[in-house]
């Protein structure tokens, strides 16, 4: 099995959880969870929460967290991500991070590597404040960017910057599974000191069979194994047999675009797998009305006309619960799955994923998706 799951908690724990459900009636209307968390914040019968077991800072701009999730975590396939929530100034923020450890690793632990983005509220916060013993909220593993179950003839893992995380997990899993067919690990970093997991990758390349490590430091030509950006010429020059490989790419948009056009031209699009590297930032210009609105639950899409989402939903024949239509009563509060909205009263911008907005006073700025 290429993608073994981490075991989902012992039998006793499951029995305990059953019993808890009976007592939920006695604890109406909150449920037992809300009481148990008084003494054990990482315990929950439904939510995935994790305790931070170790915090390491390997590069100046990144922090690596080892987490131990509670029994609601059902393991992951290498390449998948989890949505991690932290609280900053009283507000809960959620971001996606890929697991970096091997999916075969026992003990139910996961490792996340967070690189501070210049404007990244969550990443900067974690870099500054992450500490051992802290509890964070997670979601179960998500995503279809995963290592295939059958070993490919040639595995090509391409990453840029902090996009290294899912493909690193793939490489570690591949080695843990004892696979021996050729792997090329091609990584782009700004400089050698920015490269995440640099030493560990070197060790893996030296000790594992058939692992080739190719490093490119785009800001320091001549210091890596190759120079420049992803192209057919670059790969061919290095002798990477990319046209016969199963490729997995994660990194900044230009890298992804290059990879796509490369594989499209070679008619190998089926063998290219990509993962979005950062959340797409929509142009949040005041007054812009262009964009698509998607009502996820009713599976309706439309071109935004710049009016509040409530009005646009009604124009599509939906009847969302609402009240005052002036932002007072919160009856129309809904989850914004993705995108940015502007509050027409305060002018404030709010961006997803998964924040609550009042749709009667929220106009979309660019593409949005909402749980309607």
């Amino acid at each position, binding site marked *: 099995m290429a993608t073994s799951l981490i075991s989902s908690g012992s039998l006793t724990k499951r029995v305990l959880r059953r019993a808890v459900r009976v007592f939920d*009636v006695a604890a*109406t209307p*909150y449920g037992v969870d809300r*009481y148990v968390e*008084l003494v054990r914040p990482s315990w929950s019968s439904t939510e995935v929460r994790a305790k931070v077991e170790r915090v390491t800072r390997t590069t100046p701009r990144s922090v690596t967290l080892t987490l131990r999730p509670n029994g609601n975590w059902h393991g992951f396939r290498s390449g998948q991500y989890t949505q991690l929530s932290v609280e900053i100034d009283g507000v809960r923020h959620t971001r996606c991070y890929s697991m970096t450890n091997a999916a075969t690793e026992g003990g139910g632990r996961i490792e996340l590597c967070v690189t501070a983005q210049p404007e990244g509220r969550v990443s900067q916060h974690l870099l500054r404040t992450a500490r051992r013993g802290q509890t964070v909220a997670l979601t179960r593993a998500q995503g279809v960017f995963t290592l295939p179950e059958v070993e490919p003839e040639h595995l090509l893992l391409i990453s840029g910057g902090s996009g290294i995380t899912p493909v690193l997990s793939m490489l570690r899993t591949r080695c843990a599974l004892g696979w021996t067919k050729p792997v090329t690990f091609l990584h782009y970093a700004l400089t050698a000191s920015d490269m995440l997991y640099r030493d560990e990758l070197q060790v893996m390349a030296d000790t594992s069979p058939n692992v080739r490590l190719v490093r490119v430091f785009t800001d320091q030509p001549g210091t890596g194994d190759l120079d420049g950006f992803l192209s057919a010429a670059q790969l061919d020059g290095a002798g990477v047999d990319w046209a016969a490989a199963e490729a997995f790419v994660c990194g900044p948009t230009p890298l992804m675009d290059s990879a796509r056009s490369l594989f499209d031209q070679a008619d190998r699009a089926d063998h290219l797998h990509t993962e979005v590297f950062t959340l797409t930032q929509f142009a949040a210009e005041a007054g812009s009305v262009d964009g698509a609105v998607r009502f996820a639950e009713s599976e309706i899409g439309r071109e935004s006309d710049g009016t509040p989402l409530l009005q646009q939903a009604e124009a599509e024949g939906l009847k969302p619960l609402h*009240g005052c239509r002036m932002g007072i*009563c*919160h009856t129309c509060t809904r989850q914004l799955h993705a995108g940015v909205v502007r509050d027409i009263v305060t002018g404030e911008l709010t961006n997803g994923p998964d*924040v609550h907005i009042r749709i009667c006073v929220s106009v979309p700025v660019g593409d949005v998706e909402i749980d309607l």
Partner: protein
Amino acid sequence: MTTVAEAHGLTPVQLDALEVELEALRARVVSQLGTEDVRYIRRVIRVQRWSEIIGRASLFLGFLPPFWLTGVGALSLSKILDNMEIGHNILHGQYDWTNDPALSSTDFEWDSSCPAKGWQRYHNYQHHTFTNITGKDRDLGYSVIRISDETPWSPANLGNPLYALGLAAIFDHGIMLHDVDVAQVREGKRPWEEAKPALRAGLKKSARLAFRDYIMWPAFTGPLFLLTLAANALANLIRNLWAFIIIFCGHFPSGVLEFTEAECEGESKGHWYFRQMLGSGNITGGRLFHIMSGNLSFQIEHHLFPDIPARRYQQIAPEVREICQRYGIPYNTGRLSRQFGSVIFKIFRFALPSRRKRTGSVPPAPRKEPVELLAA
């Protein structure tokens, strides 16, 4: 016919200026929201959860009077905190900005027979949007108590004091039925089909809570079944009486004005603010009193900014009062005994027919001077 605004000498331009001032105040508070507010509400929730645990646990020794009394007290405290400072305020969306599911107005459920969703629809929307507009704000006397001249008198109103007492005793059920709008169904103004799902949800929740308080926990205490049942019933009663007192003091002490539908037709936001100020009354008291009343003792501030965390009301109250003074808008505040005394007076007074004819006009209000309208 003079409108309430005209009676207070307020022009539309002044109302617009009022709006600008209040919006600025609101923006300032919103920009200050943060860790402190979240920490506060979580602390209140923790106290509530622990008092629930202590209350339930004490009743296992309920045959000893001190434990029985502790049980009643702790459970009353838990239910009051849940309904007032926690439930009411979270369901208003006061903590939605935290984006924490546990504090979210869409997910929260409280320890009241009235399901959160139905309550939000009627309370947050009808009551807060149409505050004290006769005929539109059904919270005016909760359809059973005649509380104003604007409601025509009928002999049934003679029972006003009795109805009030009955409503107070089963206040949470009263609110549940009120939200289902049984009165309107009875009068044929609301189709039964529309009320049915709401009623079913309400009854289901009441049954669940009744099972918890009157069967399950009493059964857990075995031979003390009846003692536990009595303690739980008493705690529910205390919570209901308290909620009734606070809520009736918020809108019905003398000095609070009612509006007609006509004068609120197409009103400006400034007029809406003005109406909120006149439609509400505050109660003075200490810190604990304000927490126990869910800060609804700052009913005026709550009605101006229903979705700002309630602990902030006390901070902005002096400013709101100063604004009221400048605009010549009465700021209705007083001790609990005085405010509730005037509510009781009204309940008795309006059991009887009104002396003057219903004109739809309003009593003249004092202008441009510091005013404190108190029950005489």
